């Protein structure tokens, strides 16, 4: 099944692992959870030798252990979970892993946009059926959230702050009363949430001002802030993990040289430091410089090398991808990159040599092309 999908959801991708964990799990499970909280943590963060398992469970989300623990206990409590952080910090991935581990279904997702309506959160009607048979449970189209309520599983709400305030507020009663009433029906007109239902929402901290949450809704969510990964080792792990996955998905046989990974990480670390010391928005790149951005740069470079190069990832290509991905505003971003290239990369290439020299050249060419 996995082979037929471009991107399999976590519960499909790790089905075998989840089955195995479920089979050995003897810990207490809240509500209808498929795994106990400790096993959920183990699934997300991977196993240690001290866990005493017969097989190794790989780490799937990289970040502070306490974030995962706090997220899991929130889901076991009465409140919804709101993962908040900069774009590309792995919020949605964590939400997907948690849903897959807890309820084996991570696809009950509502995507918050400016066009999201209350129908997307509660229910809507199949107009043809309503005309043919009238309003009934059969002609009703439940939203993913309602489906999650009925099944006692985790529902997800991506980019909560992008939807308008009145739509957001529809969640208040769902999270408080745990039921949705359907006034159009005469009987069987209340859908009660089954034990195990909860909501994982994500919100982008950069867009917080778009549609700020009401205090009433905030109170019903526990906030877990996911920071940008700045630990070089963790970041290298994440980039490697995700890139290998992407390579597998694209069926590309290409080696990722560690030196190039180091160059990528170092460049991002430098640019983040520069952004942190910038005094105005014009002095920093528009990009959040998140880990996902790094993965994007690397993926771009890999695909470029594979299809237009000699199937070897080179420093020039990586530099070109980096410039191409980060130069969004003309001239501000390009000016910053130009300054960085000549102020930091050039001296470094002279000092350290190696791949930095090609990286310098590739970046220069890319900047020249875009200028």
């Amino acid at each position, binding site marked *: 099944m996995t082979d037929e999908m471009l991107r399999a959801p976590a519960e499909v991708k790790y089905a075998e692992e989840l089955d195995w964990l479920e089979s050995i799990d003897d810990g207490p499970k809240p509500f209808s959870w498929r795994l106990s*909280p*400790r096993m959920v943590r183990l699934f997300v963060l991977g196993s240690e030798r001290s866990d005493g398992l017969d097989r190794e469970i790989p780490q799937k989300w990289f970040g502070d252990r306490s974030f995962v*623990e*706090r997220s899991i*206990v*929130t889901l076991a409590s009465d409140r919804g979970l709101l993962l908040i952080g900069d774009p590309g910090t792995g919020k949605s991935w964590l939400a997907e892993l948690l849903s897959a581990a807890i309820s084996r279904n991570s696809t009950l997702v509502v995507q918050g946009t400016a066009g999201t309506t209350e129908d997307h959160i509660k229910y809507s009607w199949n107009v043809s059926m309503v005309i043919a048979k009238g309003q009934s449970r059969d002609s009703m189209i439940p939203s993913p959230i309602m489906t999650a309520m009925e099944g006692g599983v985790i529902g997800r709400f991506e980019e909560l702050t992008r939807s308008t305030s009145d739509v957001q507020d529809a969640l208040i009663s769902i999270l408080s009363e745990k039921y949705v009433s359907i006034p159009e029906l005469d009987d069987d007109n209340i859908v009660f949430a089954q034990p195990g239902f909860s909501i994982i929402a994500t919100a982008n901290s950069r867009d*917080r001002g778009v549609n700020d949450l009401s205090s009433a809704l*905030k*109170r019903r969510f*526990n906030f877990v802030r996911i920071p940008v990964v700045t630990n070089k080792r963790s970041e290298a792990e994440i980039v490697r993990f995700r890139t290998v996955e992407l390579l597998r998905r694209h069926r590309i046989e290409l080696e990722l040289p560690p030196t190039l990974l180091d160059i990528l990480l170092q460049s991002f670390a430098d640019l983040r430091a520069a952004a942190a010391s910038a005094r105005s928005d014009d002095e920093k790149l528009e990009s959040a410089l998140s880990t996902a951005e790094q993965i994007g740069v690397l993926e771009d470079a890999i695909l470029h090398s594979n299809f237009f190069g000699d199937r070897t990832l080179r420093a020039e290509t990586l530099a070109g991808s980096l410039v191409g991905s980060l130069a969004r505003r003309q001239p501000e971003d390009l000016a910053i990159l130009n300054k960085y290239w000549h102020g930091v990369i050039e001296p470094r290439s002279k000092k350290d040599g190696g791949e930095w020299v090609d990286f310098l050249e590739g970046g220069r060419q890319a900047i020249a092309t875009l200028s």
Partner: protein
Amino acid sequence: MTQSPFAALREQLSDAAAAFAGTPGALSGILSGMVDDVDRALGEQLEIFPVCHHSPGSALAMARRLRDKQPEVIYLELCEDLRPVLDELRNCRLPVSLQAFATELDGFPDAWGPLSVVAPITEASAEYQAIAYALDTPGVELVLVDRSADHVFQWSPQEQPDQPADAVGMEIGDLRPRFAELEEHLLHHGKVRHWSEWWDQYVEQPLAGADYDTYRQVMVLIGSLFRRLGPDDAGRLARDEDRERYMWTRMREHLATSGADPERCLYVCGAFHAASRVEEFGLAAERTEFAITPRTATTWLYGIVPASHSAIEEQFGLAGGSVSIAAATFAKAVSRGGVKPYQLKEHASKRPARARKAASPVRREPLADRLSGFLSRPPVLDELDEAELLGWSVDIVRLARRNGYLASTADAIAVFETSILLAGMRNRARPTPYDFQDAAVTCIEKDTVPGRRDVRRLCEILLGGDRIGEVGYTAMPPLAQDVYDRLAPLGFDLKKRAVHRALLDLNADPALAPCSHLLWILHRLLPDGAVRPIMGSRRLGERSVQESWDLALGHHQRALIELGYEGVTVEQVLEQRLRRRVWDPKATAAVALEAVEDAIVFLGSRRLTEELGARAVELLAAERTVDDAPDVLRGIRRLLAHYRATEPALPDWCERFVTTGYAHYCTLLPSAFVAEDIGVRQVAAMLGFLSSMEGLALSLGCDRAQLELAVRQSHPETPGKVALLWGAQFRLGVLPLAELRERCDELLANPLVIPSFPQYISGFVQALEPAPALTPFVVEVISNAFARLPDEVLLPWLPMLITTLRQEAPELVPVLVREAGRTFPGTLAAVDAWVPPWTARPAPRAEARPVVAGGPVAELLAAHPAAIDAVAALLGCEGGWQPLGQAVPSGSGPAGALLTRHPATVTAVAELLGGGATS
């Protein structure tokens, strides 16, 4: 078998041992070695009590053991020379730090000074329990056995040039993995975030209900593991081993001299040292000689300074809040009962200490393997824990609400529930403060922090906050006591941690004058904020009649106490500091002049000012740069003004300073004019010195020709300095104003020079320092520039002028503005009719010759011209004699016309004088 409380710890340690042992054979060696270490430490005749710093478990075990054993001698791992200050602990509120301090070094590199060793003492520590027991129980002797503060530095690597940037922190029972990888391994596998949390989860909690033997076994086991898995830092291990030899040597010496029974003694040391493998270990050691090197001649001073939990955490790299949490854990264990901790009684209470010796000591039972027995017992769950957690949950919500959070009772329930869930997930028998903190953050913290403190910080406050210690009056050095005594007339309790506003009306209450004087000295010596003047100032020649002060000595007690290490009174400290400052190799003449000023203002000692002044002369003569010339000029001007106003004659050093400065600056002037790295400001200050001190210098024997020559040798190239040179030439009378005006007109007419014209103006403005008479001319130059330059040149040029003047001559601009105010008309109407004084130049005067009056005098001189010719030749007058007959008629001119019209007066005067002739 039930899961044991120590199972997790055992697994952690054995995993760590396996991970870092290297080869498989090494692991078994380490494990058996650990067992040997435990065996050895626990089998020692002198009872060893292994401790860990900031461990409530250690403190509780110590309190229990002291009550049971009632030892007569306690040997403590603490610098032996700190012993006398321990008695003062009873006058302090903990946490405080014992401090050894040295500024006069002898035997250490000077760059190391001042040397400082601090040993923080908190209430929730085993060492405090031992100290409190020993000091409050009659007949018990407390012996500190670790190396002295002097040895701390003797044994530190000599090659580090920047050795002690800050105080060296000493902790009793420093037990922590010695290399980062091991700690990281333990944290990672223990699924905790930082070391304090690891210790709490894997050692403190399981040890909470353990008996004494179990406690000792576990602690030595951990110490042994960390010792065996230490990094290859041979130097550090060697130092530790030397310390162990030192301690055992001292204990053996004491036992031999005092004849104490080893069975009634207790040796309190870090678990790391309890697992020592040095040959000198144990009373029955084969090798007992260890040569203790004598101390250096460095003078050490001892005292107690206040400490705080946060300062301790920062100094020893502990996680934020961990010391507070340890204190809270200790307090909880005490309130739970079962053990009564020792606490030093204040001197004030003066209660006779009860003879506690009546309680018969419990004999030590034969050693048994307690560890295995303990493993079979289930962890004890306590109702108190639940009540405590409930209390915390309610309190944090209250605290959060007070800090702007929208928290409610529902949040309290959620925090409580989440704490339990988190503890369960983290495999803890009961929620720890760390779980509670995480739960509170999860449930209360939203997207923004509404107030100044976030939930994590609020939790730290709730769990005890940052406790700050206080040193009692009697425990303070004489200087601090003296300060408090002398400030007593102000009527504040300055020991309190508050900011007091003191209002001093020195006219109404002259008795407060000494307080004011002391406050100014403290303001000069203590860090910012300790004593802050709100109103009033104290400078040379200035004295306020009313002053207002913010006094926060309670907050800066440590700074005040450390001042006490430098002297007995603040005056002495200030004198020493001033002396040190001027004798510093990097001292300059400006610094020395400043010191002289301070000495006059604060100390009033003539002997000291003369000494400092003499040093200023030396420094000035030896200076090769003129960077400080502006400061020197200002300083000496102030001092001269002071001496002229207060003394009948200038002090000798002042005269020497002026003459030396005159010669010195004359010599350096030509090179300063051309040197690129010397600014216009510096050269202007040199010229200012030369011109304003000229009168005094010439009267003291200097030669003006030296200055004239120096100016003539100067050939500057930059516009600012060129203008300055012109100013100097004008001052010396070499360059007439008309020529100067002509040069400026040429500059303004040259479009190539216009961009640099502000530099010229800046130079002219600077030249006001040596040549104040140039002020009207500078106004004229600027006005001309404004009048003549076209707008397209002038407008871009103006900001540059302003910034140049602001940067280079801020203090002279007001002079210029005043002059401009005098020159320009005050009203708008007058502007239209106004003609600049420089354009309304007087018409060239006709060659006016003196009117030669006739009369007997003129006739006499004409008859004998030799004397007048000689005088004229001497004065350089030319023109020769006018014949008397060509005299201008006396009636011509306006005066003549007037007299002709009104002759009566003149006639009367002529008659009076007896002259008959009238015109």
